[in-house]
């Protein structure tokens, strides 16, 4: 494959050929097919919302850095690499999932809300909530609060009845 042609196609990596590890000083490294080692690689999800577990892009550290390849399924990596990638993804994607809406108070246009998420309880303020909501599919809802944080309700229909009632008040 000529170098020019290479830029035109995506490179999908075999999970067995990718090793992610930490050096003794603690910095992250990724070795790809024994041909190159990426210093401080970034792991980006191609589809963080609709398909978060597949298609992980391995990139250089600088913003907009070169893509070294895509992993179709990073869970097939060896144990240590998988642990490190998972930790990296957890660190990069702060993506709380709402389990329950504990309370909601409405102050004409502002809503003060206590959410129980997979990252713990949190008090949030929503403003112009109808303009800051994304519907994915028929029942998934992403809401951004007044300070730009986003909360994911994976399945609004699966919430408990009390939470559903509160959600219906603001949407």
């Amino acid at each position: 494959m000529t170098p020019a042609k290479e830029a035109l196609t995506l490179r999908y990596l075999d999970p067995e050929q990718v090793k992610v590890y930490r050096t003794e000083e603690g910095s992250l490294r990724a070795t790809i097919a024994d041909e190159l080692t990426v210093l401080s690689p970034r792991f980006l999800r191609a589809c963080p919302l609709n398909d978060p577990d597949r298609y992980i892009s391995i990139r250089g550290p600088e913003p907009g850095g070169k893509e070294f390849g895509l992993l179709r399924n990073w869970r097939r990596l060896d144990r240590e690499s998988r642990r490190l990638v998972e930790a990296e993804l957890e660190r990069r994607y702060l993506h709380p999932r709402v389990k329950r809406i504990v309370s909601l108070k409405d102050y004409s246009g502002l809503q003060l809300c206590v959410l129980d998420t997979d990252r713990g309880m949190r008090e949030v303020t929503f403003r112009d909530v109808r303009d800051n909501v994304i519907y994915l599919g028929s029942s998934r809802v992403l809401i951004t609060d007044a300070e730009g944080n986003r909360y994911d309700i994976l399945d609004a229909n699966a919430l408990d009845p009390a939470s559903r009632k509160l959600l219906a008040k603001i949407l």
Partner: protein
Amino acid sequence: MPRPQLPDSIKRLIADQFPGADARLAAQSDLAPDGSYGEQWLVLAGERVLVSSADGAAARVLVDVPLAEISEVEIESLVGGAALRAVVNGRKVDLVAFTNALGDRFGRVRMQLDAAVKGKPIPEPEEKLKHCETCGLVLGEDTRVCPRCSRRGATLRRLLGYARPYRGRLILTGALMLSGTAFGLLPPYLTKLLLDKVLAPRSPADKAFAAEHGLALLGWLVLALGVSSILSTALQVWRNRITGWLGGRVSFDIRATLYEKLQWLSMRYYDRHPAGAIISRLTQDSGGVQDLLAFGLPFLVTNLITIVGVSAMIFVTNWRLAALAIVPAVAISMLTRRLWEKMRSAFHAFWYRWGRYHSLVNDALNRVKVIKAFSQQPTELARYGVRNTDLMNASVYAEQTWGTIFPVLWLLIGSGSLLVWYFGGVMSMRGTLTVGDLMMFLGYLGMLYGPLNFLTNVVQWVSRALTAADRIFEVLDAEFESEETKGDVVPDRIKGEVEFRNVVFGYEKHRPVLKDISFRAEPGHMLGLVGKSGVGKTTVINLICRFYDADEGEVLVDGVDLRNLSLREYRSRLGAVLQEPFLFAGTVAENIAYGKPTASLEEIMAAAKLANAHDFIVNKPDGYDEQVGEHGNRLSAGEKQRVCIARAILHNPAILILDEATANVDLETEEQIQEAIARLVEGRTTFAIAHRLSTLRNADSLLVLEDGKVVEFGTHEDLEAKKGVYHGLLDLHRKTSTITAVEG
């Protein structure tokens, strides 16, 4: 309107002066030779083109040109009209002038004469219906609805046609209405019994009965009153729930039909109707129709039933008194018929202003930036103020008219009960009418005046909703995209050979933009369209996309006339990257997959990679799930462009339209876009428009247009060597580029 026939006097005139020449073609103009409204006739008699002045004794031949000397027949566009001209031995000879009303007609006459000049048989082109067949009224653009001939009844019937699938529920509603009304009729009768048998008995028998059983009877009668009110309320609730469902469902159906229609309306329709006006048909008008179906019609029917039932009851009780009560009511309903018209025009005006208001706001919000940049807020406010005032005046007028008419009507209708009190009272005092009968009578009258009052109210409901329905039906009746020739040839594969053969086309038929264009693009080749703005480059593209059909000549794809090719099939093999990158609110992935909704993520990513878009997309926080915002506003111009290119790559069209894709981006981005375009173009027949000639350096051939005609056609090298129009443009371009370079 029937087409006028050549008058006998002119036939005789021709027979006298040119024996043996029979009229093969005749057309009447609506202007006299001096330009005033009048009449002239253009006649193709034998081998001569004649123009004769008005009918009558004074008729004479004004122009006489032998067909053989004419090389071309053309139309000169004037303001408010146009003139037909013949080129005779290189000289232009005016034949006849006409107003815009006859533009289409003479456009066809030009075609016919042209055919005669070329010795071909004279075609008889189909005339588009512009006038109502019944009354001759000029119809709206692209519609066959004649506002004079279409009757309210017909609109209503058509509207009810949408309820046909729900016949069962309709019948149930009718039954509920009847039974509900029947129960409603009981209370006044029970009141009468209460008065005459229990409370104020007159005859000795009644008095005796009341003394003995009065209390028990009272209990039973009150119980019956209670039960009948409860039953009547229950039936009413049941009925309301069903009609509510019916109204919602039927207007859902209408909206769905309307929206589907909008997808398939011709470009000509969209050229003529602003988006705001169309939006208000989908929102305001369909809402009006829903109101009518869910509330207006059921009320109308129940009230009519009540009126019939109540009238029967009171006429049976005492016909003289009934007549006294009914006469004023009938007079009022006659009056109502007059008011119907007044109200309708008031609300028509209101809805029209509402649509215009909507268009203005929509337009202004779309160019907020321009307004701010030119600090034109005061102008905008003034413009807005005018529209807003218009809207206010229309709404005030409509509401005030209604608000005045309504109470006065109520007063007049109620005046009947005064008559009943007086004459009924006299009868009762004379003993010809019991008190119970009088009270029952007044009870029924009360029930009658309500519905009668509503009948006057219903004028507003119905007229508003039927106007809305008319506007919706107007869209539904507008012609489908190129309906007359939908095309059914489904090719196995489109190779992408495109040929224009003597194509003539104008957005208005008598003002051709493309004048006899012929060229051929080989499959897989890139053809650049070059020329100053307004020469018809975009029009060529519009015809290739089949947004419009050629007026004359043919556009052929793989040798098949485009009009015969299945439109759906053809468009599925056509792709475009336009000057204004078009994205819709949704994710990046959805936007790329627009032309191929079944594409997998890997296909989408592969296309994005080829379009130099993969990297910037993955670096977005949400990657391919990133929301692009309305019109793609959350992406930069260069990003939008590349998303569009990725979309075209994934769509994999055989024929590709590129319209100046690299405007307003920086050099590096432009290079990336150029690179992406180069990959996209490969193997596809491509039509590219670019104002920067450098963009077209890769084109296999260039088509240079000037004033709607092809002036040069060849490769870049050929045309440069030729030192013609293209060379001139190139020179100009180089000069401006140098200036930019120096200044930059």
